[in-house]
């Protein structure tokens, strides 16, 4: 059974095996397929048109399925690996162990933002950025320089208190739990973390930075936490709604999975807390 743990609780061995599996997916080319898929969706998900992965109700189930697929790929490399989550309300500085050289490596250098330390640094030769929006082939970060502080626990709790999953117009203008968690409204939770990390994380090819998975694993956990707090609230919309995925519609690119199929994460994994 897969247990997703807080990244700060991982042992040295667990960190090494997770990084080893990432590097193997990168080497085989499978990693970049996930980057390509994500970018394709984020570029085509628009407020006025069809939208599946972002700025729409299915933001949460889409990313849940995307992470499950990725975790399965990791486990084909090493069955003992699970996606860790990054609770950015707690580990909120560039000196957190998340950014140590034995895990994801540190921030980028001033200027071009190139990550210089750890196993994802260009010098390691194992993490070339192939799917990209500009010509730079190396991982970049600018931890904490592009956004105000990471969201606080109080900001997260305020969003978790919102009782309605999503609402018309079902996009980045909605007043709803989903949109406040995604971060187009209110405290900008999920979006702000992308900006705080900087570099590729601010772009459509954000999965190029392995912290993408730990960030989204936490966003996914917050969805589960919200469900536990609001047992009488469910995914919306439940009926066919133009341009968005309703409860029983299938989601691209899989076309065989609906938001309803993703409401319960426990057949796939559990959390350590």
């Amino acid at each position, binding site marked *: 059974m897969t247990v997703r743990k807080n990244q700060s609780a991982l042992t040295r061995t667990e960190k090494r095996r997770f990084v080893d599996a990432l590097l193997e997916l990168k080497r085989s080319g499978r990693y970049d397929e996930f980057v390509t898929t994500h970018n394709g969706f*984020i570029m085509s998900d628009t407020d006025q048109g069809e939208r599946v992965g972002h700025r729409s109700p299915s933001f949460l189930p889409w990313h849940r399925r995307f992470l499950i697929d990725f975790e399965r790929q990791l486990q084909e490399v090493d069955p003992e690996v699970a996606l860790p989550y990054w609770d950015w309300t707690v580990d909120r500085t560039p000196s957190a162990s998340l950014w140590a050289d034995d895990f994801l490596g540190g921030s980028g250098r001033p200027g071009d933002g190139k990550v210089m330390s750890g196993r994802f640094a260009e010098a390691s030769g194992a993490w070339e950025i192939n799917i990209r929006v500009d010509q730079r082939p190396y991982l970049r970060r600018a931890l904490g320089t592009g956004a105000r502080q990471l969201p606080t626990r109080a900001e997260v709790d305020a969003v978790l208190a919102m009782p309605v999953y999503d609402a018309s117009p079902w996009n980045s203008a909605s007043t709803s739990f989903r949109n406040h968690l995604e971060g187009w409204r209110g405290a900008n939770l999920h979006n702000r973390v992308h900006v705080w990390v900087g570099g590729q994380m601010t772009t459509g090819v954000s999965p190029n930075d392995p912290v993408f998975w730990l960030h989204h694993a936490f966003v996914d956990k917050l969805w589960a936490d919200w469900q536990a707090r609001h047992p009488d609230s469910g995914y919306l919309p439940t009926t066919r709604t133009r341009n968005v995925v309703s409860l029983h519609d299938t989601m*691209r690119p899989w076309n065989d999975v609906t938001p309803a199929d993703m409401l319960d994460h426990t057949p796939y994994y559990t959390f350590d807390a």
Partner: protein
Amino acid sequence: MSAGTFAGLAVAATAAVNATAAKAAPSERQGSQGSGLEAFDEVYQGRRIQGAPTRGAGSHGGHGGGHGSGHGGGHGGQAHDFGYAVHLDGDELHIMRNADGTWISVVNHYETFATPRQLARAAVTELHGADLVPLVLTSA
């Protein structure tokens, strides 16, 4: 593999966009009215940035039918027309307009900007001298 093999995919777009303006409710339409939609042409931090309304202004890029299923995997980025285009040293910067009228670009995808000019300047800063991967048009 060569880095360029996949590079174009990063901003792959399709020419076969069903820009069905008639389907858009008036409130959803990307009109040429509103703030920040005048043309601009300037050099910012040594890079030339240009913005101008497109002829398609008034239509939006939502690809109409085919809701939900019916699209295969590997769905690339769509060349949505939000009524405005931004170029950086001649390369098109992929931009998108939010429902509230703010803008994002492929370089700053999680942070909104009030005007295309602010968006273009932010892209220049973020690129730090690097060139954009050219927009590649592929058929759907």
